[in-house]
């Protein structure tokens, strides 16, 4: 073989094995399925090992501490760190400010009906101060906080409430160590936990179980007297002993599989078997012994038109417009007496037909706030900081605009006050545009004559994102009670009107509509089927009897005709 051909084949061999080689050579791995016992030394931001018992030890740096063994650059990105493709809409962040009656859903991803962080949050530091508490950090999002490996991977001893406290105070780099109990708020090390080499034992796991995810990903229905929390089951997968990452998997790149149908994963690998349908019904699925459902008696088009979550998650048929709290929107994980059924944002569960044409449960929320309408009809929101002065001057609000004004109005509407505030905003904010107030799905501007006029814009329309969890098992799914779970007038989930609520009272009706009104589900068809389904059980008996009689009569007739012909 000549030399050129030899080199070519060597290159081909090496490039074919490159991923394996690069994995092996750069990062330490045990390659065992068992956990690695982390007895580690903390490092400062320049990578020097810290001696906690030294007189004035440096503060630890998480990235530098993990970097000797892990590809922290890759791990800080990925879908979880805010990178990768935008994909299907997910949960937005809510910028909440009671003083200016602001509640804006936003995200740096290009999901519909969301405001952009660049319009509202001045820099990464203010982002981290506002949202860092529930943002695991990373290099691809809006935050300046580095990735907090501990919040997800430290199986024991991470105090999430402390994390919130210190992120709110702006201690982004030390908050993970304080939450993990390695240092206190003053930066003093918990020296008894370190050995003479300055090593500390940390229970770090690739999969630290659902408790690692739930602080940021809890969703709960608002409790009512008839519907207390203790009556609810947790997700069936968790009850069965699975963990979140059994489905929401990822490699070191932290491109955590989102698990929806048709997901295209940044790794370009086929992850379809990690969606509900892929795992339970697809040929490549069956992970963890996933049962394959028969859906006996369910006409097949239901599976083509409805997401699995349509029946196995989201609102139950007897409930209407359930209000929900989410970790990120309602600061769950923070001990508080103030969180109650009126705590904004108001997030409601309902049904929606998505771009793929399938029905599924979604969460809905409507924005509240102030903005500037430009000539092209676009509304840019005004950041709460800029609203302080004009709103204080006109409305004399101290802490909670909606509450204070509503108390002052004692039943009257707020037209005059909103109008005055809009004029003052026009005076005091130098940016171009007509000031508007949006709430309750409507956008209002001053008509120049002391009243408010409606502006046609979708800036106040609802933001929607799918509900996936908690997943209900077959016996608790919609339809377990038969077709009339959905196909009857007693079924409320399709007929309940869901609509926005205005944060301040102003004249004019607020639009509320049910999935039937909005033609998300064809109302006429649904009503006529509901009528027919009333007689379904009788129909089953009737058609079965007819079939038995007809077939036996048919067989007899055939036999007779055959014997006749023989004669």
């Amino acid at each position, binding site marked *: 073989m000549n030399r050129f051909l030899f080199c070519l084949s060597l290159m081909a061999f090496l490039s074919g094995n490159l991923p394996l080689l690069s994995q092996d050579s750069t990062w330490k791995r045990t390659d065992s399925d068992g956990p690695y016992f982390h007895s580690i030394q903390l490092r400062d931001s320049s990578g020097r090992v810290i001696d906690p018992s030294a007189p004035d030890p440096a503060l630890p740096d998480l990235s530098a501490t993990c970097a000797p063994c892990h590809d922290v650059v890759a791990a800080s990105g990925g879908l979880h760190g805010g990178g990768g493709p935008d994909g299907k809409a997910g949960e937005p962040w809510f910028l909440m400010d009671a003083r200016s009656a602001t509640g804006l859903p936003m995200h740096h991803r290009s999901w519909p009906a969301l405001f952009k962080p660049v319009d509202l949050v001045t820099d990464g530091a203010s982002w981290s101060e506002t949202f860092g508490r529930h943002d695991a950090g990373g290099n691809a999002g809006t935050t300046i906080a580095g990735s907090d490996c501990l919040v997800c991977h430290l199986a024991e001893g991470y105090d999430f409430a402390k994390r919130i406290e210190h992120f709110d105070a702006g201690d982004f780099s030390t908050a993970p160590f304080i939450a993990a109990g390695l240092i206190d708020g003053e930066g003093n090390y918990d020296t008894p936990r370190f050995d003479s080499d300055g090593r500390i034992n940390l229970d770090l796991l690739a999969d630290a179980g659902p408790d690692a995810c739930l602080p940021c990903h809890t969703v709960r229905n608002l409790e009512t007297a008839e519907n207390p929390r203790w009556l609810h089951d947790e997700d069936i997968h968790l009850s069965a002993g699975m963990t979140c990452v059994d489905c929401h998997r990822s490699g070191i790149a932290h491109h955590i599989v989102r698990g929806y149908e048709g997901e295209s994963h940044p790794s370009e690998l086929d992850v379809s078997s990690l969606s509900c349908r892929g795992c339970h019904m697809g040929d490549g699925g069956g992970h963890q012994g996933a049962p394959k459902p028969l859906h*006996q008696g369910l006409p097949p*088009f239901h599976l083509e038109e409805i997401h699995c979550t349509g029946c196995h998650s989201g609102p139950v048929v007897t409930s209407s417009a359930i209000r929900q709290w989410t970790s990120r929107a309602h600061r769950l994980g923070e001990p508080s007496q103030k969180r109650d059924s009126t705590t904004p944002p108001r997030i409601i569960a309902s049904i929606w037909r998505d771009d793929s044409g399938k029905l599924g449960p979604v969460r809905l929320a409507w924005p509240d706030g102030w903005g500037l309408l430009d000539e092209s009809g676009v509304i840019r929101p005004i950041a709460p900081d800029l609203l302080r002065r004009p709103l204080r001057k006109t409305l004399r609000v101290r802490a909670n605009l909606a509450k204070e004004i509503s108390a002052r109005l004692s039943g009257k509407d707020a037209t005059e006050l909103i109008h005055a505030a809009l004029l003052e905003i026009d005076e005091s904010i130098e940016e171009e545009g007509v000031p508007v107030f949006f709430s309750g799905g409507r956008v209002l501007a001053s008509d120049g004559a002391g009243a408010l006029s409606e502006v046609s814009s979708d800036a106040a329309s609802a933001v929607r994102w799918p509900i996936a969890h908690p997943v209900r098992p077959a016996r608790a799914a919609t339809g377990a009670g038969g077709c009339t779970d959905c196909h009857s007038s007693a079924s409320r989930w399709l007929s309940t009107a869901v609509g926005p609520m205005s944060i301040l009272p102003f004249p004019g009706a607020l639009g509320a509509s049910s999935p039937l009104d909005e033609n998300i589900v064809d109302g006429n068809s649904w009503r006529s089927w509901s009528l027919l389904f009333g007689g379904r059980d009788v129909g089953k008996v009737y*058609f079965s009897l*007819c079939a038995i009689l*007809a*077939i036996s*009569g*048919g067989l007899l*007739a055939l036999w007779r*005709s055959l014997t006749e012909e023989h004669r």
Partner: protein
Amino acid sequence: MKKWLSLLTLLLLLLAALTSIPGLPPGVDLRGRWLQIHLIVATPLAILIVAWIWFHQVRLDLVKASAWLAISTGLGLIVIPMVGLTGTESTHHWVQGHGWLSFLGVGLLGLSAAMAGRKKVTELKR
């Protein structure tokens, strides 16, 4: 069996066939309005099929008997998913089976009518 009942049965059979046309392409299920009309037609039709088979005085020839057996079996096939005995994936096959057998039955009835017609014409010619 009364002649008008017999004619009504044939008319409903024809209507059932017509209303099922949207479900004929492979992989497409009969759905929505057409399915509702199909079921409304099928409700009296089912009992009329029973009546036709059991109370028809004249002995049926082989083609006619096969036609009614096909239609009856078609009815039997649709009852299986209707009462919830099949999983969603296999339901397609039962529904399709119902469609093809019913059409086969109607086709055989047509054939038998055509044969009877031709027989009458030749008898008249003689």
